[in-house]
């Protein structure tokens, strides 16, 4: 006797509600919406500045979230900063900003300055961490954050604390053993965890089809007995909505949720990469049309939350923040060499 576990993927598209309804449904005020927009824009502008600084030879390296701000701000907005835990990955600048890191924080890291709150200049930029905000220090080897995030969430559960942990990674990183082990541990113990996969279609040059044999990363959730949700990552409100639902589920003690945000990296992998060798300019142009910021801007303009004047104002204030951060970081002190071997151990 045998049976084939035939798995059928049943798609459940939500009714596409109008923005004003959605705003009401989601419990958003206008200022929430503007805040989300602002964080997305701020991330983009900071990011663009970093690329300029890198080209100018002022900073050594950039790795960037351009194109993924919708997924990042939508997800982070569902968290309670300082209460929930965020264990992000290197593209998550917009997440870090949403939780409360400042432009100065991020540019200090780019310059490797001692005030960099993530690492005191020890790590490459984009390794976000800030203890007071519960943004957990991250490393470069991908997917190590998965079992760690499961452990953080296990501790929350064991100690009966009202905390949810969100961890994120790229779709390529789901190929790592740690992805599997982390999801499995989390699901066995039904810990309050959200796993956000930012599927930007490439792992450096390697396209999805060489990374996995399934169309959706969310297909992997089934093997862990957890829900797998596919969301348009360039629709910030949709991402918020599914993350908020996962957050509630986690708080109800029902365990982890895997969210796959379909999105795209609009620029090369990093300042060391030339993406022209592995993807066409047409493909990139096609995705540029779906830029989550342009799209959200249009929506906000359409429903009247934003008007061109206000938009200009906002952009001006963001430019100011970016300039301020750049100047501040550039002027800030480098670590002294006495810092080199400090904090290897507790008593250093």
């Amino acid at each position, binding site marked *: 006797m045998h049976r084939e576990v035939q798995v059928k993927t049943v798609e459940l598209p939500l009714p596409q509600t109008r923005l004003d309804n959605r705003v009401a449904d989601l419990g958003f005020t206008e200022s929430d919406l503007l805040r989300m927009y602002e964080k997305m824009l701020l991330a983009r502008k900071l990011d663009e500045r970093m690329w300029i600084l890198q080209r100018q030879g002022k900073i050594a390296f950039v790795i960037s979230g351009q194109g993924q701000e919708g997924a990042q701000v939508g997800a982070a907005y569902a968290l309670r900063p300082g209460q929930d835990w965020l264990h992000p990955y290197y593209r998550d600048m917009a997440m870090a900003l949403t939780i409360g890191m400042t432009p100065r924080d991020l540019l200090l890291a780019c310059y490797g300055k001692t005030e960099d709150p993530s690492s005191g200049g*020890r790590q490459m930029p984009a390794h976000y961490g800030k203890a007071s905000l519960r943004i957990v220090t991250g*490393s470069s080897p991908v997917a190590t954050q998965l079992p760690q995030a499961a*452990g953080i969430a*296990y501790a929350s559960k*064991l100690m009966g604390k009202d905390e949810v942990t969100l961890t994120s990674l790229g779709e390529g990183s789901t190929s790592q053993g740690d992805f599997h*082990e982390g999801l499995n541990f989390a699901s066995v113990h039904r810990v309050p965890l959200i796993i956000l996969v930012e599927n930007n279609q490439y792992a450096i040059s390697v396209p999805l089809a060489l990374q996995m044999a399934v169309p959706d990363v969310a297909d992997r959730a089934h093997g862990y007995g957890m829900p797998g949700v596919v969301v348009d990552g360039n629709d910030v409100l949709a991402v918020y909505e599914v993350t908020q639902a996962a957050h509630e589920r986690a708080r109800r003690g029902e365990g982890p949720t895997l969210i796959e945000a379909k999105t795209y990296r609009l620029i090369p992998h990093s300042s060391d990469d030339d993406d022209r060798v592995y993807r066409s300019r047409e493909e990139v142009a096609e995705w540029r049309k779906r830029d989550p910021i342009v799209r959200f801007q249009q929506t906000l303009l359409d429903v009247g939350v934003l008007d061109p004047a206000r938009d200009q104002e906002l952009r001006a204030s963001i430019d100011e923040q970016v300039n301020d951060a750049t100047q501040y970081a550039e002027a800030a002190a480098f670590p002294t060499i006495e810092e080199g071997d400090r904090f*290897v151990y507790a008593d250093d």
Partner: protein
Amino acid sequence: MPVKTMIEAVQEAIRQEMERDSRVMVLGEDVGRKGGVFGATRGLFEKFGGERVLDTPLAESAIVGSAIGMALNGLRPVAEIQFADFIWPAANQIISEAARIRYRSNNTFSVPMVIRAPYGAGIHGGLYHSQSIEAFFAHVPGLVVITPSSPYDTKGLLMAAIRSDDPVLFLEHKKTYRMLREEVPEAPYTVPIGTAKIVREGRDLSVFSYGLSLLYAREAADTLAQEGIDTEVVDLRTLRPLDTATILQSVRKTGKALILHEDTQFGGFGAEVAAVIAQGAFEYLDAPVMRQGGPEAPAAPFSKPLEEWWMPSPAKIADAMRELAEY
């Protein structure tokens, strides 16, 4: 005072720390209902329940990775790797993560945790239940590596490890688990991490070792005493950070140094000790710094004669001691 084996000392240290501090918990494969394959966690599941004494899925990277997360969120996990041989799937979580979290976060995050692992050969475990792994991890800044050789030290060092704010790799030589008994105080106590112990004073040569080899070295020293050779035996106990002061002091006294370990000699931990002596006690040396380490093979083979060939023994050690004494 009650007399205890090494494994009983391990049990007692964990139990008492769990009683003292509700943040302490245990996780690993078969540590719960079964109490561990060597019985190190026996009784804890019944006493503290399955949430604090957690039988994990069979995945070492998740064991260490989730323990890191637990430590980040305020717990003090004591993770068991069932055999040291099976630590490799967790290498990334230990070397890239646990060891570096304090440093990479500029002291804003830390992971107070212990990873316990039974290591070493001599129990017919073949290539994959016999390995020594200390040399690899003793090379990693940010980790503490402890290798006790007596029940007393085991309890005191394990308690110190659980209370430490740094990630500790606590290596228990599995052949010593039930090999000897000694008095172990009932009450909790700690033995300071990072200090070697002179377990036998002597004038003619200094022997440095840890774990099972240390025990054999003591036996060999007794044999040599009858031949008129007076050996100083130093138990390194902690390999990282290493107590170089005690090592150099001993060599400056005896003028001769022999380093012993079961692990393959080439690139083994003994090389570091030899290098420390060669640089720091050069002018006191009356003979070459000698090492006696394990053979050039992956680990102790299963077959009886091959396992014996692999293993250190008091006789082999005594031979090396004699050779050095006579130099």
